[in-house]
């Protein structure tokens, strides 16, 4: 296995890591309302 290939695999792993973090963030984000409530008293 040459160095270039190892670097390429590290890049793919890093990309996967980022995608995993983004997936975690998406779970947070999809639970939020599209708009915050608007307070109207009368």
């Amino acid at each position, binding site marked *: 296995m040459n160095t270039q290939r190892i670097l390429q695999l590290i890049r793919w792993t890093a990309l996967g*890591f980022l995608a995993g973090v983004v*997936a975690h963030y998406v779970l*947070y984000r999809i639970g939020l309302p599209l708009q915050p*409530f608007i307070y109207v008293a009368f």
Partner: protein
Amino acid sequence: MSGHTDRARSAALLIGLIVGFCSATLAGWVVSNRPYPADFVRLHKFIGAETNFFPTASQLHALVRARCSPDRTLVLVAGNSIFNGYGETPQGIWTAHLQDDLGSEYCVVNLATALSQIGDIGAVAMDMLRREYPRMVLVTNTLPGTCGPPGGSAQYRYVFWDAYWKGLLNAPDERRRAIDDWAPIGDPLRHQNEEIRLGRGLNAALRFNDLWNYVEYDWLTTVWTTDTRARFPASRRHFADPVPVIPPLAERFTTGRQPRRSDIARFSSSFFEAGEAGAWIERSAPWQSLEKEIAAVLPQEFRPHTLVVMTELNPVHLALLTPPERARHAQLFSSSLQRWRSAGYNAIAVGAGFEPDNYYDYDHFTESGGIKLARELAPQIRKLAAGGGEGS
């Protein structure tokens, strides 16, 4: 050779994805019990639902624990924007005066926030903390004739499920039964409830709300709202608790958007019908509905430690009512108090003698009103903490 390379890339991507997701989950678990903000006064606009920030049950739990040691009497203040102190500065907020009035044996924490109801943050915080704090009083406000369902308001009912799935509640089954029995009618609302329940179940395991709230608060805002856009993406800790601009008394209730007589009359109109000789007769449906909500909103054992407060409206706006409407308004207060008391709660009305300058608008207080509110409530809280009650 190419197939082998593709497989290696896919494996690397998948491993990275799993590690990334698990790392974020682990980080969520680590930060979920982090008490913040350090200089907490109240759940102001920029750390509340008004700007799409929803503190988790663990964060509220940690917040109270960091501020109050269990050897003090915990005074949990919950309720809506009136108790949140909308119209008061963070320094002159009524709960700071309440803390001064009660002294260092007591620890006052203000978890009230706009549109919150008794069943959400207040009930959940009380349930989470009552074993740890043997002396605790929940002080919450509500409008006369209103209570809300056991899960609380649409904006904050998630707090129950967040605490429930995380195992933070001391009476989970009783509260869950009450909330399940209150399932809303109609598919859209039922689906919304189901979404909240499932979403918070997932969060209990994966801690995404806990992690990204932390990032949102400490690092950078990722949620764009009209109120945060001016400093987007600055983190929430850079958004100060807004200081209200209080117009002089001469202009305060005459300029800008003001409630009309019909708006004030509407508080009591649905609860009564005109009887003979100017008497007001209770309509059965709204009162039965209120009684049902009061019976379900808090377990029986919480009630002796709960003070339900109804605050009177600004006398300037009450003066808009006709004399019969004023009588009906007064009857709404007395009939509501009677409902709360007969269900085992301590309930009082405050503000009857307050002056126009004590109000910021038709129902929120200024600092002078907050001082009066604190003075009226402090003796009641002392009594409750000592095992007695007012009006129960």
